């Protein structure tokens, strides 16, 4: 039986295949992370369509379910083009796509993650988008089954003065309980305690700490099947934010 479905998707990557085709990887609403061949996708006309972060309506066909299959896509919204001139936003968008591609298993539906990624990608032009980004990575850890417990102290059960996270358990630790072990604990920026984007904008230093925290657990849990470690796009985004944090602290 011939396989065929249509679904909304976000372009995660497009690797050139031969002279004119690309292997397109999409994060789709109902079919999860799914790859397929796009004939003519490397051509001049189609090139702008397959940029990371773009929303597309995809049509996937294959002879058998486990075949790579081929895509035909229609552009819904060109998100990449909106941030091409903004280095940090572009780096963030590339990082979100690269992290999704690296961390999620292929062909497994993650509708919640699709929704959170599309919200993040759509909000990449807004003011507090980095805060959203860190919360999105936190949500991704939860989606992968490695959610952090930031509601109470792992040692005392206290809900006050939570400023560390245990790298072992992924649970918050209060200032008092964590004081003797602070060298070994990860810093917990306050904006992650509420878990919403409504709070006041955080400082670049806090955002960098947030990325350090999620990066630690993503590397341990999310990317652990990949010998190459975190995607280069995320490393570049973290470096760029760290640069901003250094400048603003001077």
């Amino acid at each position, binding site marked *: 039986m011939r396989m065929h479905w249509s679904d909304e998707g976000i372009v995660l990557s497009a690797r050139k295949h031969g002279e004119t085709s690309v292997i397109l990887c999409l994060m789709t609403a109902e079919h999860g992370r799914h790859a397929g061949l796009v004939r003519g996708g490397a051509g001049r006309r189609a090139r702008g369509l397959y*940029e990371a*972060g773009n929303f597309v309506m995809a049509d996937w066909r294959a002879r058998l379910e486990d075949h790579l299959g081929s895509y035909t896509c229609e552009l819904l919204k060109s998100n990449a*083009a909106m941030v*091409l001139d903004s*280095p940090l936003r572009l780096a963030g968008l*590339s990082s979100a796509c690269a992290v999704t591609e690296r961390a999620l298993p292929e062909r497994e539906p993650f509708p919640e993650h699709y929704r959170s990624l599309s919200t993040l990608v759509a909000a990449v032009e807004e003011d507090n988008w980095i805060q959203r980004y860190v919360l999105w990575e936190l949500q991704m850890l939860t989606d992968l089954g490695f959610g952090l417990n930031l509601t109470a102290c792992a040692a005392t059960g206290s809900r006050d003065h939570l400023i560390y996270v245990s790298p072992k358990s992924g649970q918050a630790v209060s200032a008092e309980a964590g004081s003797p072990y602070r060298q070994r604990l990860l810093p917990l920026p306050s904006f992650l305690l509420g878990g919403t984007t409504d709070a006041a904008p955080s400082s670049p230093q806090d955002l960098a700490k947030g990325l350090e925290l999620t990066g630690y657990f993503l590397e341990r849990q999310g990317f652990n099947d990949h010998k190459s470690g975190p995607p280069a796009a995320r490393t570049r985004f973290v470096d760029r934010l760290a640069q901003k944090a250094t400048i603003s602290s001077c």
Partner: protein
Amino acid sequence: MATGDIDLLIQLMSKLPGLGPRSARRAALHLIKNREQLLKPLATAMASASQSVKQCSACGNLDTVDPCVICTDARRDSSIICVVEEVADLWALERTAVFKGRYHILGGVLSPLDGIGPEDLSIGGLLNRAGRDAISEVILATSATVDGKATAHYITDRLSECNVTVTALAHGIPVGGELDYLDDGTLSAALRERRKS
């Protein structure tokens, strides 16, 4: 069925861009049929190019002399460098006959997917030129793609150490383009970059 030298010729030609095994067979047959007019001059030209063409040690361009004719042309403005991804981009800009400065060829763009990092591109050479020569402006003419722009942003950061003005090519409506047929990204870029007429 072809054998020996003909087979090898077809095999090699099928590796050329734009040619598959069938079109390579047609092209090989055409060359053999026109031995004197095409095959022999082509073989000579290829042998000669293989011997003489080299990469310019200053800009990365391909030429028979090193430094290349663009780098040694005294009529060109040596204070402006246009940074392009590949030699093909240099040729495209040269066809316009508008730019009269010098070039720098990166040899690609940063591409995390393909494992191409800054160390794989000729960025160090560009920084050396910008720091050493009397350069006043660097024009970044990378593609308007995520990888192309990420490369441009990276180079802009690195060039902040040098005392040069960094500019980039504008994006917008192509000549002959109709608004109705343009994609959202190009249109919004054109709107953002609008100017007083």
